[in-house]
C-alpha cells in the first residue's frame, strides 16, 4: 500500500477519538480503551499514539523505531487494515463525519502486550527458507577469491524482493496464515524466490524441498492481500505464484537458469574495472539514441 502523499496536505478533524485494543498478559485480559486527542495537520497514527502515551496514558505499549517507514517496527491494524503507523496519516483513516479510529495489534501474531506482537514465529519461518547465498563449492563460499558476475536484468529479478523490511503486514493480512498457523507465509516464500532468482545462488534444490510441503507454497490461494498491504511494493503474491511455477518446472526436470561465475579478485581501493556496455545498461536502452535526444525525467508532482 503506497504512502498517500496527498493525505498529508489535508486537515484532520480537530478532535480524534482513538480506540485501542489493549491486552494485559498478567491478567490475560483484553479490552478496548478510548482516548481523545487534539489532531493537527500532518499528524500520523504513530504521532497520535505517542501523544497519548506522553500526555494521557504512559502504560500504552507499542513498538516503533525509525518513524519513516524503514524499520518496519510499527505495523498495526488500523481501522481493520494492517498498516505502518508511521506512514499512515490521520486524514487517511478519520474524517469530520467519522472521527473514530480503531487501532489493534497485527492479526495472526500472538500479542505480547497492547499493540506489541511476537515476531518469533515469523522470523523463524523466514530463517527456515535459508535466506543466504548457497554455493556448491563450500570452500569457495567460506573463503571467496573473487566476486560473482551479475547483469542488471538479473539484478532486477531480485532487487524488488530485497526491499522487504520485515514489517509483517503481509503475514497479518494473509487469510491462509489465519487458517493454518504453520503456513510459511508470504514473507518467507517471497524470500525463498528472492534467492531462487539470484544467479549467484546454487541452493534452489534445497529451497524447493523446503517450500514443497503442505504448509509451503501450495497452501497459498492467491488472495493477494499481502501485496495489497505491502508498504514497499515488494509484491509477495506475485512472488509466490512465480515460485510455485518454478517449483512445478523443477519437479518436471525442466527448471534451468544461469549460475554466475567468479570473475577475479575484488578491485583494489581506487581501482576501476572496465565493464562491457551490456553489463551497465538495462535492456532496451540505446546509448546513441540517448546522445541524440535529450532525456526528460518527469518527477511526480509534489
Amino acid at each position, binding site marked *: 500500500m503506497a504512502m498517500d502523499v496527498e493525505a498529508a496536505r489535508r486537515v484532520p478533524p480537530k478532535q480524534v477519538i482513538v480506540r485501542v485494543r489493549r491486552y494485559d498478559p498478567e491478567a490475560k485480559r483484553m479490552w478496548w480503551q478510548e482516548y481523545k486527542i487534539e489532531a493537527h495537520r500532518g499528524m500520523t497514527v504513530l504521532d497520535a499514539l505517542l501523544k497519548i502515551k506522553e500526555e494521557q496514558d504512559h502504560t500504552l505499549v507499542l513498538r516503533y523505531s525509525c518513524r519513516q517507514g524503514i524499520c518496519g517496527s510499527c505495523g498495526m491494524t488500523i481501522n481493520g487494515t494492517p498498516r505502518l503507523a508511521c506512514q499512515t496519516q490521520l486524514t487517511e483513516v478519520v474524517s469530520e463525519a467519522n472521527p473514530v479510529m480503531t487501532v489493534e495489534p497485527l*492479526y495472526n501474531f500472538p*500479542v505480547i502486550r497492547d499493540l506489541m506482537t511476537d515476531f518469533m514465529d515469523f522470523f523463524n*519461518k523466514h530463517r527456515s527458507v535459508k535466506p543466504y547465498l548457497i554455493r556448491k563449492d563450500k570452500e569457495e563460499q567460506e573463503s571467496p577469491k573473487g566476486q560473482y558476475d551479475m547483469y542488471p536484468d538479473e539484478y532486477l529479478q531480485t532487487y524488488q524482493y530485497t526491499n522487504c523490511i520485515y514489517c509483517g503486514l503481509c503475514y497479518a493480512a494473509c*487469510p491462509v496464515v489465519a487458517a493454518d*498457523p504453520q503456513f510459511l507465509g508470504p514473507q518467507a516464500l517471497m524470500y525463498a524466490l528472492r534467492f531462487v532468482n539470484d544467479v549467484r545462488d546454487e541452493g534452489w534444490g534445497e529451497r524447493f524441498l523446503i517450500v514443497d510441503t503442505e504448509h509451503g507454497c501450495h497452501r*497459498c490461494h492467491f488472495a493477494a492481500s499481502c501485496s495489497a498491504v505491502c508498504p514497499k511494493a515488494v509484491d509477495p503474491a506475485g512472488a509466490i*505464484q512465480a515460485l510455485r511455477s518454478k517449483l512445478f518446472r523443477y519437479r518436471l526436470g525442466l527448471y534451468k537458469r544461469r549460475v554466475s561465475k567468479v570473475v577475479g579478485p575484488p578491485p583494489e581501493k581506487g581501482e576501476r574495472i572496465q565493464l562491457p556496455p551490456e553489463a551497465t545498461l538495462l535492456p532496451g536502452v540505446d546509448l546513441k539514441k540517448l546522445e541524440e535526444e535529450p532525456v526528460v525525467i518527469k518527477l511526480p508532482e509534489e
Partner: protein
Amino acid sequence: MTLAEGRRDPEELPNRPGFWRSSLNPWTVRTRDNPERVAFVLHRVTGFIILAFLLAHIIETDSPVWSQYFPYSGLSGWALWNHIMAIESGLAFRIGEFIVAGAVLFHAPNGVRLLLAEFFGVGVGRPGDPRPPYVPGTFRAAQRQWLYAVFVVWIVLWLIAGVIIFS
C-alpha cells in the same frame, strides 16, 4: 520434509488468534484495491456450494437404488424418484438451482485464472524496479484483467442461466 529446526510450535504461542477469529479473517481484514481477496472468498464459498450440491445430487440420483433398502416416507424405487422430482420442480429448488448455477459459473472461470497464475506463473507480471505510486506488479499484470473478465462473464452467464431456469 519438515521445516527447519528451531521453529517454535505455533500451538504453544500465547494469545494467538483462536478458531473463530481465524475463520473470520477473510471478512474482517480490510484491504484496498484487492478484488483478488473477493475472488478468494467467493471461490471458497462457491466451492462449498458445489460440493454440497454434488453430495445431494449423488443421493438424489441414487435414490431408486438405496430406497429399496431404506424406504423413505413409505416410498421406494421409482416411486420415490417421482416423489423427489415433484418436490424439486418447486420454486425453492429452482432458486437453489439458480444459486448452484451461479456457483459453478464463478468457480470454473476463476479456477482457470488460478491455474494459469499458480501453476504456470502466467499473468502475474515480472519483478522490476518499484517506482511511485508503488502499485505491485501483480495488480498491473494480466491476471487483474482476467479477474474483471471473470466477474463480467459470471454475471452475464448467471443472468442467462436465471432466464433459462425461471422461464
